[in-house]
């Protein structure tokens, strides 16, 4: 084993983050530590507003921790970069570009070195995969929410980042499309060997896709439990019928529910507490 292998691909090291708000400091992430190694698929799950997106955006390079360190390839994260692809919770499809131009956006950037001849082919490929071929020349204003989400996924996949940060990437999709997208992601991973950090609200999705699940608490996000998912890859949908899957699901659901209740208790207005 050489030294390079002992460095984690990404690492949260006693990370806390506070936002300064007009009402004072808001602690959003508290003392979070975990590592992500090459080929890992980390799912992060926790109640809404607890700080998941904030946690991810530190690794993406958009927020700096107040204390602690966020490392990528052993170096503190300084800013965003193409080796860390991000699928944003708000999609961020470019409204002034057509569907096809959105997918081509990354391919045309100098940093990605995609030869002119291949760009079109890559675009067509993802248009087909994401079921957007009929809308190749439409502007995003003509797309449904789910289609925009698929477009954001296509745009991120097209530049083939080694590390993918996905913030509820399938949240706006119907059950069938969602299952499709999950299977597609598993296929892409098998073919391209990516490392993934995925934020989700779906316990099933977390178990089905990931190798490790980080359950976080209500705000401020602390680590409640890190669970190794005991299933190998490749996976298919029959996995979800296995009894172990069901047991794990109940266990995680219980963890998530208890945090959800904690959050509700926090939110309850003072007048109700008496």
């Amino acid at each position, binding site marked *: 084993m050489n030294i390079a292998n002992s460095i984690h691909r990404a690492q949260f090291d006693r990370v806390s983050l506070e936002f300064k708000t007009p009402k004072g400091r808001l602690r959003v992430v508290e003392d979070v530590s975990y590592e992500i190694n090459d080929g890992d698929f980390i799912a992060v799950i926790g109640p809404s507003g607890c700080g998941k997106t904030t946690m991810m955006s530190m690794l*993406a*390079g*958009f927020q700096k921790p107040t204390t602690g360190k966020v490392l990528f390839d052993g170096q503190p994260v300084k*800013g*965003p*970069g*193409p080796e*860390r*692809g*991000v699928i*944003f919770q*708000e999609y*961020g499809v*470019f*409204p*002034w*570009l057509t569907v096809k131009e959105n997918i081509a*956006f*990354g391919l045309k*950037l*100098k*940093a*990605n070195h995609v030869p002119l001849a291949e760009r079109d082919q890559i675009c067509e490929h993802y248009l087909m995969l994401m079921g957007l071929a009929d809308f190749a020349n439409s*502007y*995003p*204003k003509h797309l449904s929410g789910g289609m925009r989400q698929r477009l954001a996924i296509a*745009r*991120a996949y097209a*530049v083939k980042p080694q590390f993918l940060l996905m913030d509820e990437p399938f949240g706006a999709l119907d059950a069938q499309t969602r299952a499709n997208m999950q299977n597609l992601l598993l296929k892409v991973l098998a073919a391209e060997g990516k490392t993934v950090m995925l934020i989700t609200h779906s316990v099933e999705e977390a178990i089905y896709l990931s190798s490790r699940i980080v359950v976080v608490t209500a705000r401020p996000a602390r680590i409640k439990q890190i669970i190794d998912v005991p299933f190998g890859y490749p996976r298919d949908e029959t996995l979800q019928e296995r009894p172990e899957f069901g047991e794990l699901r109940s266990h995680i659901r219980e963890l998530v529910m208890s945090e959800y209740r904690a959050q509700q208790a926090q939110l309850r207005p003072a007048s109700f507490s008496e």
Partner: protein
Amino acid sequence: MDGSVARRFLLGLAPWAGAVLLWYGVRWSGFVNPSLIPAPHRVAAKFVELLLHEGLLFDVYASTRRVFLGVVLGILVAVPVGFLLGWYRSARTFADPMINFFRALPPIALIPLVIVYFGVDEAAKLVILFYASFFAGVIVMYEGVSQITPLYIRVAQTLGAGEFEIFRKVIIPLTVPHILTALRVALGVAWATLVASELIAAQRGLGALIQNASTYFLLDVIYVGIICIGCVALIMDMILRRISARLLVWQERAVG
């Protein structure tokens, strides 16, 4: 011509027809001394007369040229300045009071100073129009630019865009709508300021026409001048709206 085009044309015409009717109505109602309100047909006759014998077209040209140049120069400066103010929050807190101070000054109040510093030639009139366009444009620009969300820039960064690529491929497309709005607002303000700018010893121009007519109490000429200003301003705005619609097909509109 198909039915829907014809209908839209008629719909567009209706309020004008209504305005003319109202004009006649007020005149005939007896509430106002009819000698103070020239009849629409007399104004129309005056229009033809001025057009054929007094070179009205040259007045239209002179004014349009002034407005056009004033707006173009004003916006050329307002775009970069407004952009910087919108982009750098600190620049804004620093320049905001200044801009609002100067913006509040009515151009007409500046005329004596402009005459002192720029004389009474074409340049002086342009300075007034430039002033008005610049301050109208700069506010629209910086309000617009400061509302650009960082999301798209972040997306571009995670896809690997460098600084220059972000500027060219993200910031410019996001700024174009604000430039067009600034142009439209500046154009409106410049037309509104035209008469004031032509107070400075102008021989020709629609503002000069109106002022000369007011000296001799030629109400019909005043009406012709006012209507011409409105019409040219309307046409320029329509052209600009066409261009905007072309450039901004991607924008979501409340009404298609």
